[in-house]
């Protein structure tokens, strides 16, 4: 059964037939596109098995993963049988919703438990986990030919994304520096750009904003012209997660930094400059005039679902949030479009701050080599392509996947402007924060200050000065300032 189909898939992997011919051939044999994807991936896995690398080295070993409930995890689970077949290993996992996920990770890692061998994390979290000694530097695996298969192609990872997961552990140390430790492997990532409702924009005669001033104006216009709709969705909860998406992407585009690093490595607050004040004022005005009425409780979830439900005209947030809201049962599915966004009119290109879902290895794991087998497979080009073309594994972190014609045409077909937005923003996409251990303290306080400004409890000038003062005090207390 499926022998003919398998042969066709193999021919495609070996480059003997084009993707289009392969799909047409599969269709003539009564195979759906989804099944064709699985067969192609099975063939790719077989090809992987023949690259001379000893995939069976850890056969019989079981690795346990800690996963966040996310489409990336879904894509991995959908493809896991191929990994098991390739390696003879078994994979078990626990999945938790995001609300409690990172508490679970902190508890598991800080207890020194060897229960989990690898887990999903964000790059920011590794600024805590790494120096605490809870996770391994993965450079020693990536660079070891006996542990990493020759087709892994580390250089294929987008540079800004790859570097954002590497830090030397020195407060203020540049991400991706020569002495940096690779605390995690990028898996999938999010750029922060504009997702707008093209139906609403057309109805209200709005044009796509190209800088922060225009964004403030367009959001206000959308609110006044569209009945029952607010102009722009951005996050506002009292959390570090309010600062990292649209806000920091715009902030970085003005050339602003969160912290200054002196020559002797001391850190100090950098958010009370004149340019920063002006940017904050515009941002606050935008939320006051056209943001969600309950903005201060908005997380990514509310920002996304409001867009999908047609309650907001656009979001300046994670592109993949717009991607998911453009499908499924959402009221506005099919109406959403994407645009790159550079807040600074003088900037050449957008500089999105990014969130990277990554894979890290628990230091307490007793099966590190086996865990690395899983990690290199899950972050490898074959699984990346499978996830991107057959599942919702966006945004992929590999250049080869972004170059895949099938993937690009799939995005172009249903997600207007997505590919162009990505291509234009990717060169400037990276983590724009200063890596240091107080990241969550300082950004949470920043979010709280922003809330006070929006509620007019404190003027922007005064709020930023107070914030800078508090940041400096905390840095000093922690021996970093």
């Amino acid at each position, binding site marked *: 059964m499926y022998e003919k189909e398998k042969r066709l898939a193999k021919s495609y992997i070996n480059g003997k037939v084009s993707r289009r011919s392969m799909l047409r051939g599969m269709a003539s044999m009564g195979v759906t596109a989804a099944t064709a994807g699985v067969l192609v991936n099975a063939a790719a896995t077989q090809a992987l098995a023949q690259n001379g690398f000893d995939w069976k080295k850890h056969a019989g070993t079981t690795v346990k993963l800690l996963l966040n409930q996310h489409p990336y995890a879904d894509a991995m689970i959908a493809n896991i049988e191929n990994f098991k077949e390739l390696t003879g290993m078994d994979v078990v996992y626990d999945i938790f919703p995001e609300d409690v996920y*990172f*508490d679970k990770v*902190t508890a598991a890692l*800080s207890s020194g438990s060897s229960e989990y061998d690898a887990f999903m994390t964000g790059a920011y979290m590794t*600024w*805590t986990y790494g*120096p*605490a*000694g809870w996770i391994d530097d993965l450079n020693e695996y990536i660079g070891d030919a006996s542990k990493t298969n020759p087709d892994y192609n580390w250089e294929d990872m987008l540079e800004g994304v790859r570097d954002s997961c590497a830090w030397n552990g020195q407060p203020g140390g540049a991400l991706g520096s020569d002495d940096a430790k690779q605390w995690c492997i990028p898996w999938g990532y999010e750029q922060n750009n504009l997702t707008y409702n093209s139906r609403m924009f057309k109805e209200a005669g709005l044009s796509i904003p190209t800088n922060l001033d225009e964004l403030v104006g367009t959001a206000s216009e959308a609110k006044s012209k569209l009945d029952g709709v607010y102009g722009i969705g951005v996050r506002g*909860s*009292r*959390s*570090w997660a309010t600062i990292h998406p649209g806000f920091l992407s715009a902030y970085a585009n003005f050339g602003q930094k969160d912290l200054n690093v002196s020559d002797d490595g001391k850190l100090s607050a950098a958010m009370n400059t004149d340019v920063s004040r002006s940017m904050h004022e515009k941002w606050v005005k935008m939320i006051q005039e056209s943001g*969600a*009425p*309950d*903005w*201060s*409780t908005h997380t990514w979830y509310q920002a996304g679902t409001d867009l999908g439900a047609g*309650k907001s005209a656009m979001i300046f947030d994670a592109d993949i949030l717009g991607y998911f809201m453009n499908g499924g049962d959402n009221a506005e599915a099919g109406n959403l479009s994407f645009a790159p966004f550079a807040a600074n009119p003088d900037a050449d290109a957008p500089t999105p701050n990014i969130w990277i879902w990554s894979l890290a290895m628990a230091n307490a794991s007793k099966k590190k080599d086996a865990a690395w087998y899983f990690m290199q497979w899950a972050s490898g080009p074959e699984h990346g392509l499978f996830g991107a073309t057959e599942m919702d594994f966006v945004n992929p972190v590999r250049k080869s996947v972004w170059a895949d014609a099938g993937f690009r045409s799939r995005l172009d077909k249903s997600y207007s402007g997505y590919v162009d937005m990505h291509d234009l923003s990717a060169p400037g996409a990276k983590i724009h924060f200063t890596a240091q*251990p*107080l990241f*969550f*303290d300082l950004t*949470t306080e920043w*979010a*709280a*200050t922003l*809330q*006070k400004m*929006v*509620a007019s*409890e404190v003027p922007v000038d005064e709020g930023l000065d107070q914030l800078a003062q*508090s940041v400096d005090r905390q840095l000093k*207390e*922690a*021996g970093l300032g």
Partner: protein
Amino acid sequence: MYQLIQGALERRIMATATVGDPPKRKFKINKKYLPYLLSLPALLTCIGILIPFFTAVAYSLQRYRLSQPWARKYNWGENYLNFMTDPSFWNTLKVSMTYAFVTVGVELLLGLGIALLLQKRTRFNNFVSIMLLMPLMTAPALASLMWKLMTNPGFGVLSYFAELIGIQDMRWASDPSTAMLTVVIVDVWVYTPFIMILLLAGLRSLPRQPFEAAELDGVPRLFVFWKITLPMLTPFLLTATLFRVIESIQQFDIIYAMTQGGPGDTLTVFQVEAYLNFFQSTNVGRSAALLMILWAITYFLSNIFIKNWLRLREKAHGDA
């Protein structure tokens, strides 16, 4: 082979036969040790409670951030001293106390009022008192999510009612000026039944004679309430207040689920601040110090209530 099996069977039969025999030696406990042995479970429980407590005390005296393990050391009272000059700590103290006293105050008034209304044992009153217990059976975190939807400025049913009565653009938990009010409403909704049921039980257990005598003498109802009901109910009121003050000063789930402590620092009560310090900032020392201060406040308040409760009990016994 046969002999072997037979031998084994005989030994088995002998062993079985000895099962029912009375034991030769009786295990005797020296009476001197009996009290210690009997109090051993309590001692073990105490140790189980004290180990985490003293661990927290030790952490609170350390500079201890999980993200800076190399800098971990005892700094003794420095975490506590830092609080003195930290405006966010004083804000936490103020917010926690305000929240505790406002919620408990409102809940006491409402709980007492409802209990008085339901005092008489009728089928209707019994049914209503069971119905009123429903919110208490809802997990506070779920109640918060429910209220979060009802107070959504866009589509919440309460926002709709607010507009009907002329309150435009009510932002509930999203606005610093109404955030405290919103979480207090949720707390009151969840916990008033607790006070109501406790006071109802108290009211129904009061001796009837003083009330019958007052009724015969034609004493006005308000006078009966102030001079007979309230004084006799005071131990129950104190118990209810004690439980609720301890709980509400340690409130976490309602506030965190609704606002995460915001907007700004409007609702950063002790538990929320300690939670964020530990899980988000991994600042174990500061988090533990905050919780030790919360423990001290709770201990101090509990002491006041218990002392008053004992004084009232003694007075009641003396009067008798």
